[in-house]
């Protein structure tokens, strides 16, 4: 009789327990990710989904240090041309296959050779991969390459199941199979991406949700409305103007992280003949005058509601590679006017091209107003992003408001922008001594030595000013105060391991 009475109680308790356990985390994304194939993926927002789906050989922590993920340890050869990686044992992919040295070799070679691979450039110095034993691989490089570990801590280091990779080919992204804490369930384009807990995950104790649903909601007001109405638990990229709405509301919390990227103005100094026709592109003194005319704190206040760190370099002042020998100049309109006079153009005129995003347009307007005080006549050309990119690539611009999402290693923030003829060098900047320093910074593994090289680089590049750096945005994450265990990592990617509801 007593057991009969107990039965409903036990059932209720069981239901309650499963109810508590069956938890879903709903994350609002600012964009719809592109293809979910680590080899082909291109977007920043896709990397957020990957951080739950595909583990990498390495990861970065709050201090941008490289920490092992699928790797258990690593060692450089004496000549720094080979990297031996020991792998974590007993790791399986979502399809039950073993994650071993052969899988690492397969994935890295896929990154290197697949047509349309976006990882090929990141792994350019990787010549071959040897399987030393089932849990050890050796990466042989054509030359020492210090950013390699940082590359392997991003999509280039994501290891996929060779079985699924071979079966799906270039359609792998429709049903990705990796070794992350969550496995793929379904995707409805422009609507949602659903992942579920992978029970055999190597670090399953750190996984506290059964499902994650990513919902792309491009409008930041609507994204916030979803959070406030309880339909989302977490949103990324809260608009700075919405911060006051959440402050003082105990139901929500806000995390701010200074990004590893930057916002800046790229100046055409040699991309086309236009560079020589405009005093801004022709004369470094005019560019210096422009920088001196700008008040970065003012720009941050007006454009970002204070939600950014003013900056004058490709990395933020808190970064270990920040060149202290080139501090951020204060606004000095008198000096700017003097420089313009010295250059023989007291009232230079140039067109500032900007994409149509609200931030970029506000930057252009503030720059226009500030530069006018020094004598500049700035015309704003506001154009849709794809068009602006095309014009920039063809060198049909004087100056261009352009942001970069940033990479963990400083090389990712400068090499492709300042080395001669690199794809992102819209400025058309090219100096043999800069190329030499950039290449040396890539081949030395010693952090102190690299710091010195970056200081030398800063002394040249920040004087030539192919890019005037303005600020480093804050990643603004808003989430329900029930959520605990958030890791604030500067790359702006949401790590779901360790996250739980209180």
């Amino acid at each position, binding site marked *: 009789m007593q057991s009969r009475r107990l039965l409903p109680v036990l059932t209720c308790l069981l239901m309650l327990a499963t109810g508590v356990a069956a938890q879903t985390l709903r994350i609002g994304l600012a964009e719809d990710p592109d293809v979910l194939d680590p080899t082909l993926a291109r977007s920043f927002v896709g990397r957020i989904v990957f951080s739950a789906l595909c583990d990498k050989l390495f990861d970065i922590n709050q201090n941008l240090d490289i920490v092992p993920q699928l790797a258990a340890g690593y060692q450089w050869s004496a000549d720094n041309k080979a990297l031996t990686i020991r792998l974590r044992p007993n790791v399986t992919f979502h399809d039950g296959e073993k994650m071993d040295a052969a899988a690492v070799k397969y994935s890295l070679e896929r990154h290197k050779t697949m047509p349309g691979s976006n990882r090929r450039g990141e792994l350019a110095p990787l010549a071959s991969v040897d399987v030393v034993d089932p849990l050890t691989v050796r990466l042989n490089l054509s030359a020492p390459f210090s950013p390699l570990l940082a590359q392997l801590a991003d999509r280039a280091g994501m290891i996929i199941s060779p079985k699924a990779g071979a079966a799906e080919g*270039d359609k792998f992204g429709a049903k990705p199979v990796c070794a992350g804490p969550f496995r793929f369930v379904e995707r409805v384009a422009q609507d949602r991406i659903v992942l579920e807990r992978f029970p055999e995950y190597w670090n399953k104790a750190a996984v506290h949700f059964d499902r994650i649903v990513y919902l792309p909601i491009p409008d930041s007001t609507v994204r916030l409305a979803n959070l406030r109405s309880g339909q989302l638990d977490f949103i990324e990229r809260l608009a700075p103007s919405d911060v006051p709405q959440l402050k003082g509301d105990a139901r929500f919390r806000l995390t701010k992280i200074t990004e590893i990227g930057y916002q800046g103005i790229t100046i055409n100094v040699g991309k086309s003949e236009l560079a020589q026709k405009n005093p801004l592109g022709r004369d470094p003194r005019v560019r210096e005058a422009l920088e001196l005319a700008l008040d970065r704190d003012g720009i941050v206040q007006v454009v970002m509601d204070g939600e950014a760190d003013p900056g004058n370099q490709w990395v933020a002042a808190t970064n270990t590679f920040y060149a202290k020998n080139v501090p951020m100049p204060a606004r000095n309109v008198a000096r700017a006017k003097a420089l313009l006079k010295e250059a023989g153009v007291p009232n230079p005129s140039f067109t500032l091209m900007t994409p149509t995003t609200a931030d970029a347009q506000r930057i252009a307007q503030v720059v226009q107003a500030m530069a006018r005080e020094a004598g500049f006549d700035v015309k704003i050309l506001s154009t849709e992003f794809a068009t602006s990119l095309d014009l920039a690539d063809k060198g049909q611009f004087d100056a261009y408001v352009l942001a970069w*999402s940033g990479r963990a290693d400083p090389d990712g923030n400068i090499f492709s922008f300042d080395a001669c003829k690199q794809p992102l060098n819209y400025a058309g900047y090219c100096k043999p001594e800069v190329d030499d320093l950039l290449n040396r910074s890539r081949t030395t593994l010693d952090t102190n030595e690299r710091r010195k090289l970056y200081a030398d680089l800063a002394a040249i590049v920040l004087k030539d000013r192919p890019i005037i750096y303005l600020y480093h945005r804050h990643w603004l994450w808003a989430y329900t105060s029930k959520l605990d265990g958030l890791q604030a990592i500067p790359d702006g990617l949401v790590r779901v391991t360790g996250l739980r509801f209180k």
Partner: protein
Amino acid sequence: MLAYVVRRVATIVPTLVFVSILIFGLQQLLPGDPAMVLAGEERDPAVIAHLRETLHLDKPFPVRYFYWLRGVIHGDLGESLRMQQPVRALIAEKLPVTLELACIAIVIALAIGIPAGVVSAVRRGTAWDYGANIVALWGLSTPNFWLGIMLILLFSVTLGWLPASGYVSPFENWRANLASMLMPAFVLGNAIAAVLMRHTRSAMLQVLSSDYVRTARAKGVRERDVVLKHALRNALIPIITLGALEFGTLLSGAVLTEQVFTIPGFGKLIVDAVFNRDYAVVQGVVLFTATAYIVLNLVADVAYAVVNPRIRVS
């Protein structure tokens, strides 16, 4: 009759060819290199070269058009490079969502517009009339995106009655589906309701002053029956035609509403595709829409011909 239908169908082919050239040509006029946009932030030259080859951007315009047309004739609208899904599958997935949204919106528009128009006509010159006119004017002049955000703030954030955005399939949960559709459908139907109200009002005024209505009143028919049974029925004919015409407007109006409410429909598909320079999607969606319009027109023409023999002869 058969000859007429054959003649009309025959005109579809050159029309569609012309439309396809127009779609393809206009797309090429879009500034910006699609390969550069699709190559993502890194813009690796090898990736750009690969994309150019995949998209046949390295070939001259007529060759590209031929490749595309060949696919279309075989029922292959191409593949979205960004989403890696066949365009046909994307259309099949998104179209029902927008159709559902438009249907609910038209129901809302009719439910608001017709009664408001009737009341306004019957109580002409009173506060009811002015009130309805003010509401109609407001409905016409309120931008969709603003109204959408305001409704989200009221019904989702403050009251918590409806989901702020997103879409749930009716086959998954019909209640959640209706809840997710209500606000966007209202926003979309709101402007149409205003148009319908204005037309209902003028049609009703005309009918109410006609002889048979006076006769009905003289015979002692109750005023309610005069209005609803005698007048409204006649006044409704042009309104229904107008409603059908406005349905087309709704499909295009859905573009903005779907953006605000993040509804994964046809409108959002095409807007995102244009910004991402996902050529195959833009071409496929526009061609599909154009074909649908042409075919529907044909059906209407044939239906008219069936009803009215004079059309067949001419």
